């Protein structure tokens, strides 16, 4: 309290609430009104990858476990919705129910995968998760009776939220925005919780943590399950927005992209995850004008970015907590 506040005016509650209201107004009302539909769809992709990034941040950022097969959980969520709410088997379960099923199924798979491999160190864990992701994709690609194999599942139901049919990209934008705000608040609270602190301690020195009597296996499993559940939920949203799923969407490349999201912005920092999703989703779209040189430039920007800022584009101290503090919320 001794230091002068950097933005003195912000300490007034009215100003703070006013700014927040303006921000909410712009994001919720002005953006969907002003943006072209294409831009809205790009934003929806951004929101989706922000979710995936938040999920992976728990495992990679907080717990410090490199997971290269995150797309498996995304796939499980997506196929849950595709199978349970489409013409495939003529099941048409309600959206929220499938969301719950997909999330729990993904979390359960996370536990299933996590349990036997928790003894593994960093890069061994990386290849095991990578292998797991590939196993899931290959099974999806080959189990024609359930997943329709490489042809994919079309005619997936439009999501229906207790009477609100999500049909246009604008509806989806508003819906995903609410979901992202909820999930980010949740994950941020997790970061600040005792569990989050335990994860950080484990990331720094798991031998010491184990010596002090903490069960690191349980910590790791919790991280896996929580992150998998967010991945699964993102998968449900993806299937509901595309209304078509096929194995092509769940390749290894996708897992790697999500790792890029987590790392390029700054590991274990949710603001960094947002920036990372921006880099991975928006930048390639901005580069479209370069035609053939697009992916080359994308690769170059990634390399330049990480060399210039090896800790990620946003340093860890500038997280959500920093913003809240600076603006006087905390």
């Amino acid at each position, binding site marked *: 309290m001794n230091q002068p506040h950097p933005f003195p005016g912000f300490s007034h509650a009215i100003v703070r609430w006013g700014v927040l209201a303006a921000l909410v107004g712009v994001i919720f009302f002005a953006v969907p009104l002003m943006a*072209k*539909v*294409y831009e809205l*769809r*790009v934003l929806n*992709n951004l929101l989706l990858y922000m979710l995936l990034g938040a999920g992976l941040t728990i495992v990679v950022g907080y717990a410090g476990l490199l997971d290269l097969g995150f797309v498996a959980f995304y796939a499980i969520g997506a196929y849950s919705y595709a199978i349970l709410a489409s013409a495939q088997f003529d099941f048409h379960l309600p959206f929220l129910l499938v969301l719950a099923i997909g999330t729990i199924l993904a979390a359960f798979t996370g536990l299933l995968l996590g349990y036997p491999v928790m003894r593994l160190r960093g890069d061994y864990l990386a290849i095991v998760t990578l292998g797991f992701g590939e196993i899931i994709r290959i099974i999806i*690609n*080959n189990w024609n009776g359930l997943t329709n*194999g*490489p*042809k*994919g599942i*079309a*005619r997936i139901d439009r999501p229906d939220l207790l009477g609100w049919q999500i049909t246009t*990209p604008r509806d989806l934008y508003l819906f995903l925005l609410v979901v992202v705000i909820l999930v980010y608040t949740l994950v941020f609270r997790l970061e600040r919780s005792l569990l989050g602190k335990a994860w950080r301690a484990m990331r720094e020195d798991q031998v010491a943590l184990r010596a002090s009597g903490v069960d690191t296996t349980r910590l790791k499993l919790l991280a896996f399950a929580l992150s998998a559940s967010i991945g699964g939920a993102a998968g449900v949203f*993806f299937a509901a927005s*595309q*209304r*078509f*799923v*096929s194995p*092509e*969407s769940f390749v290894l490349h996708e897992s790697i992209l999500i790792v890029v999201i987590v790392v390029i912005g700054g590991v274990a920092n949710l603001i960094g995850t947002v920036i990372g999703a921006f880099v991975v989703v928006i*930048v390639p*779209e*901005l*580069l*479209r*004008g*370069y*035609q*053939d040189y*697009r*992916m080359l*430039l994308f690769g*170059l*920007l990634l390399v*330049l*970015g990480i060399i*210039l800022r090896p800790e990620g584009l946003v340093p860890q101290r500038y997280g959500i907590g920093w913003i809240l503090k600076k603006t006087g919320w905390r």
Partner: protein
Amino acid sequence: MKKVVIAVAGLAIISGATSASGQDAGTFHIGAAAPLSGPQAIFGQGLTNGMQLYFDQLNAAGGLPGGHKVELVKADDRADPREGVLVAQKFCDDEQMIGVLAHFNSGVTIPSLDVYGGCSMPQVTVSSNPQVTQLGFGHVFRAANDDYAQAQLSASYAIETLKEKRAAIIQDKQAFGEGVAKIFEDKFKALGGEVTSVSGVNSTDVDFGPVITSLKAENPDMVYVGAVMPQLALIVRQMREQGIKASYFVPDGGFTPDLFAQAGKDNAEGTLITFQVPPYDSKPELVAFAKAYREKFGKEPDTYDAYGYLAAWIVGETLKGMSKADVNRENLIKALHATNLKNSLLGIDVSFTEHGDLKGGLAFLYKATDGQFKLVK
């Protein structure tokens, strides 16, 4: 300082792209979306080369009646359904765009239908998955056959003409490869043949030694492969090297000079390929296409070059029949439904069923003979 320079350069790269595309109010845009980067870029490039060739010819000849030019706007979908949907919306938002030739992969075309349907965009695709035209959208047209014609032709030729009884099938577990392989299998069995084994391989594989070794013990009369290049070439090469003499049937992806280059001329000899286009020397329009293609790209046209040209041709020739004031998305859809074009590359008059499927599409069977493709049926 150095960091600042690099950072500024990075930002300049990003912002530079947005101003890169030029606009000319007097031109119609036709969108072309296909994988232009990544492992499948080779197919997307062939496809868009064919389209470009057609529109270059059209514009060089003065454009549409009334002097309107048509600009082909290409976009990379990276064979990724998610990116395909973004491209589709970008096309929809382009007010000068009156039609699209999109996409290459069935798995990208299907999710794009919803988007194009939403902005009444005429969509001409070469994706062969039967589902594409069965989902109840009225704006989509398939400028090619679905998988049935060619796979059934292979089966009936093997049984009825070559009197072969036992077939082994290899397929790459992709929508196209699995689709044709299944149709072939059903037809072959229906005609009284026996299928000794169906082996799934990865679409990225190059080593088929293990599969071929176990296939050798089955001693089949023929092998049918549902896949694309280069796998079609690699499998026949490794089969012949292991001494399997069975006859070798492949779908249309094999109709490319690459088959001889990649398999070796001797190994490819006798390969039976189905293709939707009659021989390039059989009709004046085919001769003209092949000649123009060679002049522009310095090589023989591949499978997808021909399909790309055909798709562009269908849209372009239909536009020619419309008066300038009438040209808009809705009217082009109507015109495509009513279109009846003579002298197409396919050797048939092009018109569409109410679902948008090509009417009366043919399949031709070619035999690789001495580095050339000779029509056999």
